[in-house]
C-alpha cells in the first residue's frame, strides 16, 4: 500500500524527496567542512614556519644527536631545521653573522624566503677535497643586505672565524625583510668543519591541534634535556585566534543554512500531506483507526527521510570534496560520523512534518474533507 501510494502520487512524492535530498546534502557538506576546515587551515598556518624552537640552554650548542631526536619525536608530523650561528669577520674586518643550516629542510620550513637560487651541495666531493688539504670554496646563500657588504660583484670571498679561513662562493641571495637579510647561510657540514661549533637552535614546525603541539613540546623537552623548548607564541596565538573566528563564522553559516534547508523540507512535506487529506478521509471513513493512520503517514515520511538523507549524504560529501579541491587544493575527507547525525535530523524533520498536519486533520470529520470544504 505504501509503495502504491508513492507510485500513484509520483509528482508530489518526487518533489518532497528532492527537497529532502537537497537539505541533507547541504547539511552533510556544511558539517563535513566544519569538521575538516580546521585541519586544512592549520596546514596553511604551518607556512608561517616554526611554532616551536629548541635552543641550547644559555646559548650553548645542542648535542650532535638533537636533530635526530627531534625527527624521531616528530615522526612525520612536521619539519625541523637546525641552525648554527657565529659572528665571523669579512676580509676587511667587518663583523657578520654566518649561519650553518640544512638547505633542504629550510626550503620546506621557511617557504616565505625569497631565494634567487638555492646552493647545491656536492657533499662528498667537498669533503674529499677538504681531507686532501685543498679547501674548496663553500657555496652560500647571501642575505640581500649582506651581499652589498661582502660580495658586491658576486665574487668569491673569504670569511675568518678564530683564525680559520673559509672561502665562500655566492650561489644565490635570500630576502625576507628580517634578520636573515644581513646573514650568510652555508651548509651545516661546511659550518661545523669550519667553526667546530654545533648548531644551537632547531626550529620546529609541528602540525596538529594545540593539544598535539603541546604533546610534541613535552616529548621534545624529555628527549633533549640539554635544550630549552619554547613555543613561538606569536604564531601560535595568531593561529588560534584566526582559526577560532573562522570556525565560529562557519558555525553561524552552517546553522543558518541547515535551518533554511530544514524549513524547506518541512513546508514541502506538510503541503504534500495536506494535499492527501482525501486519502486520509477515505481511509478513516472505511474504518482505519487513528493509530493505523498515524503509522501509515509516519512510515511514508520516514521512508522519504531516510532515502533523502542517504542520497543527500553522498551528494553532500561530493560538494564538500569539491569545495576542498577548489579552495584548499586538497579534498575534504568524508566523515562517516556525520551520517548518523544527518540521518537522525532528516527523520526528525520528516516525521514532524507528517505528524503536524495529521494531528490537525484528525479532529475533522471525514465527510467534511470529502465534500472539499
Amino acid at each position, binding site marked *: 500500500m505504501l509503495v502504491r501510494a508513492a507510485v500513484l502520487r509520483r509528482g508530489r512524492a518526487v518533489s518532497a524527496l528532492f*527537497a529532502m535530498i*537537497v*537539505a541533507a546534502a*547541504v547539511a552533510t*557538506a*556544511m558539517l563535513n*567542512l566544519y569538521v575538516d*576546515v580546521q585541519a*586544512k*587551515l592549520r596546514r*596553511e*598556518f604551518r*607556512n*608561517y*614556519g616554526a611554532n616551536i624552537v629548541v635552543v641550547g640552554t644559555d*646559548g650553548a650548542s645542542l648535542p650532535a644527536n638533537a636533530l635526530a631526536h627531534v625527527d624521531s619525536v616528530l615522526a612525520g608530523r612536521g619539519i625541523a631545521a637546525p641552525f648554527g*650561528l657565529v*659572528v665571523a669577520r669579512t676580509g676587511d674586518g667587518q*663583523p*657578520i*653573522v654566518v649561519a650553518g643550516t640544512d638547505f633542504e629542510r629550510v626550503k620546506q620550513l*621557511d*617557504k*616565505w624566503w625569497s631565494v634567487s637560487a638555492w646552493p647545491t651541495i656536492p657533499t662528498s666531493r667537498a669533503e674529499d677535497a677538504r681531507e686532501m688539504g685543498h679547501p674548496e670554496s663553500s657555496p652560500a646563500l647571501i642575505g640581500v*643586505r*649582506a651581499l652589498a657588504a661582502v660580495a658586491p660583484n658576486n665574487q668569491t670571498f673569504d670569511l675568518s672565524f678564530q683564525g680559520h679561513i673559509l672561502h665562500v662562493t655566492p650561489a644565490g641571495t635570500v*630576502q*625576507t*625583510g*628580517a634578520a636573515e637579510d*644581513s646573514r650568510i647561510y652555508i651548509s651545516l657540514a661546511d659550518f661545523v668543519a669550519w667553526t667546530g661549533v654545533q648548531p644551537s*637552535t632547531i626550529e620546529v614546525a609541528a602540525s596538529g591541534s594545540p593539544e598535539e603541539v603541546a604533546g610534541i613540546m613535552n616529548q621534545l623537552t624529555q628527549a633533549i634535556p640539554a635544550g630549552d623548548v619554547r613555543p*613561538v*607564541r*606569536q*604564531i601560535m*596565538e*595568531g593561529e588560534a*585566534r*584566526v582559526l577560532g*573566528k*573562522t570556525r565560529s*563564522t*562557519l558555525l*553561524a*553559516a552552517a546553522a*543558518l*543554512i541547515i*535551518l*533554511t*534547508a530544514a*524549513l*524547506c523540507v518541512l*513546508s*514541502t512535506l506538510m*503541503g504534500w500531506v495536506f494535499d492527501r487529506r*482525501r486519502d486520509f478521509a477515505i481511509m478513516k471513513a472505511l474504518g482505519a483507526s487513528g493509530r493505523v493512520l498515524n503509522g501509515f503517514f509516519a512510515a511514508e515520511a520516514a521512508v522519504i527521510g531516510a532515502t533523502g538523507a542517504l542520497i543527500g549524504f553522498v551528494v553532500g560529501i561530493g560538494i564538500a570534496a569539491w569545495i576542498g579541491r*577548489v*579552495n584548499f587544493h586538497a579534498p575534504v575527507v568524508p566523515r562517516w560520523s556525520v551520517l548518523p547525525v544527518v540521518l537522525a535530523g532528516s527523520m526528525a524533520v520528516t516525521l514532524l512534518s507528517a505528524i503536524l498536519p495529521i494531528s490537525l486533520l484528525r479532529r475533522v470529520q471525514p465527510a467534511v474533507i470529502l465534500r*472539499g470544504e
Partner: protein
Amino acid sequence: MFVRLVYESFRRQKRRKLLAGAAITLGVTVATAMIAVATDIGDKINRELRTIGANLVVTPQEDSLDVEIGGVSLKPPTDGAFLSEADLPKIKGIFWHNNITGFAPMLPVNAVIERNGKPLDVTLLGTYFAKQISFGTDQFTTGVRSTYPWWKVSGAWPEDSSRDVLMGERLASRLDAKPGNEITLAGQQLQVSGILSTGGAEDDEVVVPLGLAQGILGRPDAVKRVYVSALTKPEDAFARRDPKSLSGAIYDRWYCSPYPQSIAFQLAEAIPHSHAEQIRQVAQNEGAVLTRIEGLIFLITLAALFSSALAVSAAMATAIFERRAEVGLMKALGAGKLAVASIFFAEATLLALIGGFVGFGVGSVLAHQIGHSIFNSEISIPPVLLPVILAIAVIVTFAGSAAAIRRAVGLDPVFALRGEL
C-alpha cells in the same frame, strides 16, 4: 478588477500568504546575513591576522649590517644610521593611512644592569607602549600594546613618559626581580613596573620607554627601526612589479592598491632617508590564509543563496498548487491564460517585495549580531545591497512560481474543479 482580485486574495487567504511570505523572508534573511558577512570577512580576518605582528619594517637607508644573534645585537649601538622620531607621525599621513593599524619604533641599546651589586650586560629596547600621537588634527594611540598583542605583562605596563621599565621574564628570574623592585640600569635608578613574557628574544631584555633609551644612548630623537602593522591586499603579479618601471595610470593604480609593496613604498617616501620593506614571513603568509578563508566563505555563501532560493521556490510552488481549484473557476468563467498568470505573478511580486524588505531588515540585524559576537566589531552593510537583494528575491520568487503557474494554467478546468489532478 485586477487590483481587487489581488487585494482580496491577500485579505482572504492570510494563512497561505503568511506561509509563503515567511519562507521568502527567511530566505532573504539568510541571504542578506551571508552576503554581508562574506563581503566583510576579508577585512575582519585581516585584522585578526594583524595579531601575528607587524608586516612592514622601516629601517635607515644607509644602515650598516645588523650583527644580531637571537635578538642580541653584537654591534656597537651608536654604529650605523638612525631614523628621526619626529618623522614618525608622518606614517599617518600616507595615502593608505587608514590601513595602518599601528606602529612601534625600536631602539636597542646595550647597557649594564646592576642588582644586588652584580653587574650584567643586557640589551635595552626602547619603544612606545601606548603613545598618544597627533598628526594634523588626527589623534591616535600606537605602540607595542596594539602591534604585539601576544606580549603579556604581569604587573603594570609602564607609561610612555615615565621612568618605569618592563623586564623580560627569563632575565627577571635570573636576577630574581619582581614588579615594584628598583634596579640600577646604566647608572640610573629605575623601577620595574612589570615582568614581560613574549616567548621571543625580549624575554632576555629590558623594555623601556623610547625617551629613556634615547637618553641612555645619548642620541635624542633616534630610532633604529619602526615596525608597522598594515591591512594589506594579497600580493599578485602586478604587486611585484617595480614602481620605477611603471608609468602614468598604471603607476597610479599600483600606488593606490593596498599591496604590502605599495604601502612600503609610501612609508619610505614619507620618512626621510628610510627604506621600508615587507616582513615576508608575515606579509606573504597572511595573503595565503586570507585568500583561503575568503574563498571558503564565498563558496558557503553560494550554498546559502542556493538553499534559500530553493526554499522560496518550494514554498511558492506549494502555495500555487493548492489553488488549482481557484484557477479552474477563473478559467471556467472565461479568463485567459495570460490573465490568470498575471494575477499570480503580481501576487508573487508583492510577496517578494514585502518578504524582501522584512528579510533585509532581519538579515541586517543578524549580520550585526554575528559581527558583534564573533569579531567584536560592526559588520557594515552597504546600502546598495538592498536593491540587489530585492531583485534577487523577485527573480527567485518568479522562477519558483513559474513552473507551478504554468501547470496550474494548463489544467483543464473540469478536472481542476473536480479535484482530480
